[in-house]
């Protein structure tokens, strides 16, 4: 009897002692748009999160207070729905009790969860989004590594149009958050650059066909077309533009051409399209950019997009460096993120308010099937070309 009790106690002790020496998992939570209107674009964000988790765990874990801890990713499908995203982030914080949060996809969902982040004072580095709305309300627990804020981006687009000798423009805009913000700022920027706005039309997010709208754009015969699309409807734009023979020499398609699926559908026909984006794997002064491109391509059997995947990678790099310095304490983490400089695949990052002030605003263009930075000239990896006629 005594021997049995002794053995049981010994087993219990061994169990507990082995558990204590094991590093505790760091739970990292986020919501992802696996279904709904953002699903077409959100895949690369999830791939990047998973790749990061695998790489960190393979290297021994996330460094917290000098010790390494394995990462456990906790995520749910938000169905591209803002109310669902709010519910998920509340659940991640209060029920799953995650240690760190990663961002959902897109500006609308980022904006939607800001209320939750502020209520629980939970810092989160955003990625696939930028909103002047959040900059203006001075949110304290979210930051955007991107430089594609609609106001400064609109200035850059107007400069490109001037550079190309554009005198008139047609503008079509999706009624979602980010594209509407861009529309708000491009109109005064065009006016300032003395460029005439011939067509200015909105279309709903769930649109299934843009042919009628693009026929109107074609008959206006403007020098340039600004298509403020989301990834899903960028395909409708390109298909429609090809069908109606919309061959303006300058065509800006805001969101879409950066993604792999776009190149897969249109191939060389997409050459010459200008789009937003401040990253390319071909910049020599961002040493880890090419490595990320290669790692992602090897892991997911295809290249990353040049917008969400690098921004997502930036956000986890910033988070990782901040946690290594300040641990998991939310107040310390907030202070570190908002004051330190971080090294990322898109160059150094430092935040003032919610904005990354070290990354200049840039625009990209598809040339020979590759994304190149074409603006501003100091940052460019290639010169701007005119859009050849659709084939």
């Amino acid at each position, binding site marked *: 009897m005594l021997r049995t009790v002794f053995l049981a106690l010994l087993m219990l002790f061994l169990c507990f002692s082995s558990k204590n020496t094991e590093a505790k998992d760091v739970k990292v939570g986020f919501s992802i748009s696996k279904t709904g209107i953002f699903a077409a674009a959100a895949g690369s964000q999830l791939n990047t999160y998973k790749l990061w988790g695998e790489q960190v765990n393979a290297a021994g874990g996330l460094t917290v207070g000098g010790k390494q801890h394995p990462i456990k990713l906790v995520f749910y499908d938000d169905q591209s*729905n*803002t109310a669902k995203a709010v519910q998920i982030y509340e*659940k991640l914080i209060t029920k799953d009790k995650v240690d760190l949060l990663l961002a959902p996809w897109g500006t609308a969902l980022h904006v939607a969860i800001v209320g939750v982040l*502020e209520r629980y004072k939970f810092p989160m580095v955003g990625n696939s989004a930028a909103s002047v709305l959040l900059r203006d309300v001075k949110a304290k627990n979210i930051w955007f590594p991107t430089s594609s804020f609609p106001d400064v981006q609109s200035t850059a687009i107007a400069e490109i149009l001037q550079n190309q000798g554009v005198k008139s423009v047609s503008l079509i805009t999706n009624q979602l958050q980010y594209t509407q913000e861009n529309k708000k700022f491009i109109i005064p920027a065009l006016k300032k650059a003395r460029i005439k706005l011939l067509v200015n039309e909105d279309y709903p997010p769930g649109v299934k066909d843009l042919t009628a709208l693009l026929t109107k754009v074609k008959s206006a015969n403007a020098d340039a077309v600004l298509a403020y699309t989301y990834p899903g409807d960028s395909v409708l734009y390109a298909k429609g533009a090809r069908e109606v023979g919309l061959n303006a020499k300058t065509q800006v398609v805001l969101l879409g051409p950066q993604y792999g699926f776009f190149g897969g559908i249109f191939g060389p026909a997409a050459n010459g399209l200008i789009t937003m984006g401040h990253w390319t794997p071909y910049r020599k002064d961002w040493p880890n950019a090419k490595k990320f491109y290669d790692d992602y391509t090897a892991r997911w059997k295809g290249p990353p997009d040049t917008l969400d995947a690098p921004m997502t990678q930036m956000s986890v790099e910033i988070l990782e460096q901040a946690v290594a310095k300040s641990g998991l304490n939310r107040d310390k983490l907030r202070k570190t993120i908002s004051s330190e400089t971080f090294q990322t695949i898109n160059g150094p990052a430092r935040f003032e308010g919610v904005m990354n002030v070290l990354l200049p605003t840039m625009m990209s263009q598809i040339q020979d099937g590759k994304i190149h930075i074409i603006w501003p000239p100091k940052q460019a990896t290639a010169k701007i070309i005119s859009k050849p006629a659709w084939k």
Partner: protein
Amino acid sequence: MTLPSNRVIGLAALITFIFLGIPMLGSEYIMGLGLTLLMWIALTQSWVILSAMTGYISLGHAVFFGVGAYVMVLCFNTIPFILSIIIAGLVGFILAFVIGYPCLRVRGPYFVILTFGLAELIKFIVINVEAGMGKFGRLVFGAPSLEILYYLILSLALTSILVTYFVRRSRFGFGLRAIRENEEAAETLGIDVARFKALAFAISATVPSMVGAVMILRNSYFEPMDVFNPVTSFTIVSMAIIGGGDDAPGPIYGALALVLLQELLWANWPEIYMIILGILLIIFVLKAPQGIHGWIISYRKYGKYENS
């Protein structure tokens, strides 16, 4: 009008007491879940007053939820939020009454399509108005605490339950059910059919508008595509069908079953929960077409499961 039995009153008091106590558990997750459950109870109860009692199936109740939310964001920080909730209810009532008169002239599938189309129309009007004002989503910062919102939704859920219960047992309720059974016969009996239907529509729109006004404070972000999401209307109809019947218990059972099942599946199998949920719903509709309430009544009556 028959009054509820002591047993029913006791059971209702016990359930109310349990819901009143949820915030005291100190778990925001459970409180959030309770809030969601109460929201669906309130929405489904309201739908029952029009659709289950008159047989006019509305597939556009999301519009009232959205309109209530819109009223709240427009009034937020200008007037007390309680007043905004009341105004949202009034706007919902008037809107439904005004559109009810012409819309309720059509019946069956035409009415279903009309309500769905109307909801989409109002959604796109709001989207265009917002775009025209240069707005693209509105943030609602400084909303009341989750606890306050919970009690507000609880009171709206209780109100909707009581309204459904008493309407069903009133002369007005008998009139509505007579319309469902045979509208022409009801008219020959002296029922003012047009007024009854419009009033039922208006009553069924009031609480959803108030619920929308409260829920936008919880989500803290107004985006027309989401607040006018037709999935809200589909969910209400699903819950009413699962709950069954044209009385107050049906929506409670329906909301309880669907919310808890969804939460259970979502929390444990996030990757495949929609597939499991779909399969379970198909099995349920095939095996218990009269809904949970009908199944309980039939079980009590015959002491066993009766399918017809």
